[in-house]
């Protein structure tokens, strides 16, 4: 997968291979700029890979998009500035032509879930960073998609809100048996929310390690205390970067000469 601007070419991804079984939960971790978002954008049919193939439940990304099989929470929570928060959350269902009452009901449910009650009538610029991110999550949740693609959805949230949303997400995934692909910077979060964690190397991004998390689908906060959790954490940290005590990011290939 390459990006080009004029004669300059950035190779963002090279050989990547990852298969998530239907209903499975996978996380993607990797250094900043290694191509995680690009990978999600390929699955969401936003960019076309210059080589290779991506499928969601046997469909190409384009088909999956056409059948509204996935929902994407992108890295910068995109809200339409001219719509109030509630209208922004309703957007997905509105586009899918859901019934008005149903749409409102599901949006209010999702808003309640992410803790934004009381801000329905606020415009995006009147929300704090974390509130905007939660609104974007709520919008994806209203859709009850088969595949949930989330790009650092909890990045701007405080630990508590984050933990609470983690568990809400797990509950929803179980309820709807959706498949999850999550990009996160928190190794702990990756372990808590996944069956499998894939580790990407810096550019050109490659999946260099995959770790099965054997916790089953009924997770509790207690699993943090499981010795396996710490072992997973150590393994992933190691996979991310041989030496855990590194002080510099290792992304140094000049691409824009």
């Amino acid at each position, binding site marked *: 997968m390459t990006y080009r601007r004029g004669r300059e070419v950035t190779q963002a991804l090279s050989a990547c291979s990852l298969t998530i079984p239907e209903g499975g939960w996978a996380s993607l971790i990797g250094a900043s700029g290694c191509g995680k978002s690009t990978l999600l954008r390929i699955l969401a049919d936003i960019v076309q890979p210059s080589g290779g193939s991506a499928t969601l439940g046997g469909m190409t990304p384009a088909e999956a998009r056409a059948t*509204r099989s996935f*929902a994407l929470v*992108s890295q910068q929570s995109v809200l339409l500035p001219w719509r109030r928060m509630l209208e922004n959350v309703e957007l997905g269902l509105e586009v899918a032509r859901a019934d008005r009452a149903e749409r409102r009901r599901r949006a209010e449910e999702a808003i309640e879930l992410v803790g934004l009650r009381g801000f329905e009538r606020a415009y995006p610029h009147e929300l704090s960073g974390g509130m905007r991110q939660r609104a974007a999550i709520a919008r994806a949740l209203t859709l009850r998609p088969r595949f949930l693609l989330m790009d650092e959805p909890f990045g701007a949230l405080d630990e508590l809100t984050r933990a609470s949303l983690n568990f809400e997400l797990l509950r929803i995934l179980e309820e709807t048996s959706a498949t999850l692909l999550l990009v996160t910077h928190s190794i702990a979060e990756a372990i808590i929310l996944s069956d499998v964690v894939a580790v990407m190397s810096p550019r050109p991004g490659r999946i260099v390690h995959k770790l099965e998390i054997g916790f089953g689908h009924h997770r509790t906060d207690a699993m943090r205390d499981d010795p396996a959790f710490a072992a997973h954490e150590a393994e992933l940290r190691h996979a991310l970067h041989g030496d855990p005590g590194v002080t510099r990011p290792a992304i140094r290939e000049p691409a824009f000469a």
Partner: protein
Amino acid sequence: MPSDLSVPAPALPSLRLPGLDALALALRQVGPAALLFLSILLVWEGVTRAGLVSPLILPAPSDVAATFVSSAPRLFLHLGWTSMAALGGFVLGNTLGFALAVVFVHLRLARLTALPLAMMAQAVPIVAVAPALLLWLGNGVEPKLFIASFLVFFPMLVNAMRGLASADDQVAELLHTLSADWKQRLLIVRLPAALPFVFNALRLSACGCFVASVVAEWVASTTGLGYVIVFASSQYRMTEVWCAVLLCTAASLCVYGLVCLAERLAMPWRRERPGPA
């Protein structure tokens, strides 16, 4: 030295009379302009009274006012004709310009084929072909409507095309992943994003449509302010000419004001910038 921060709970907002506030605001808003216009009027009056300008060229504003008072009904009748063509052209031209912009933004082939033609049409000096237009469309309001629409159309086309394509990439991607069809994208993203541009075009044509209508009447007509201008000036009735000119100006300003009002209502989400440095 410590960097100290303390923010106590805010005081209750003080009571204010909204009416008085509005009055003060209005005064502050229009005060300078009113003063400017008043001084222009005074200089104008002085210059003409002193005989520095021939009354065949510029009449005194007081004489203009007198003529206005004495022939107001007739003038307003002509204003009615002009307004009909102007406002009709405003609606028609803007609608057409906007509709074409929507088509051009969606259909590449239409854009490549018809946009150059639209531009060529726009490039034709309309006053030069006005006589032919009058012959084709008759002497009623139609040719004036046509000319006003024609001059309003292009600013809207250009602005709307730019505006419809102005939505941010990220928003476009969002709608794409939601698998929105073109109609939804149009309604949900493109239209709101285009609003500032659309209102820009409307502001331009609010003034433009009256001027266009007058130009059309000026070529050949027996009604409208354009006719008053040609006919009265052929007999050097300059006070009447200026009545017509000022009436046309005032009408444009009214429409402009309405557009600004509509704009404010249509875009409540716009926010303020921090104060100047």
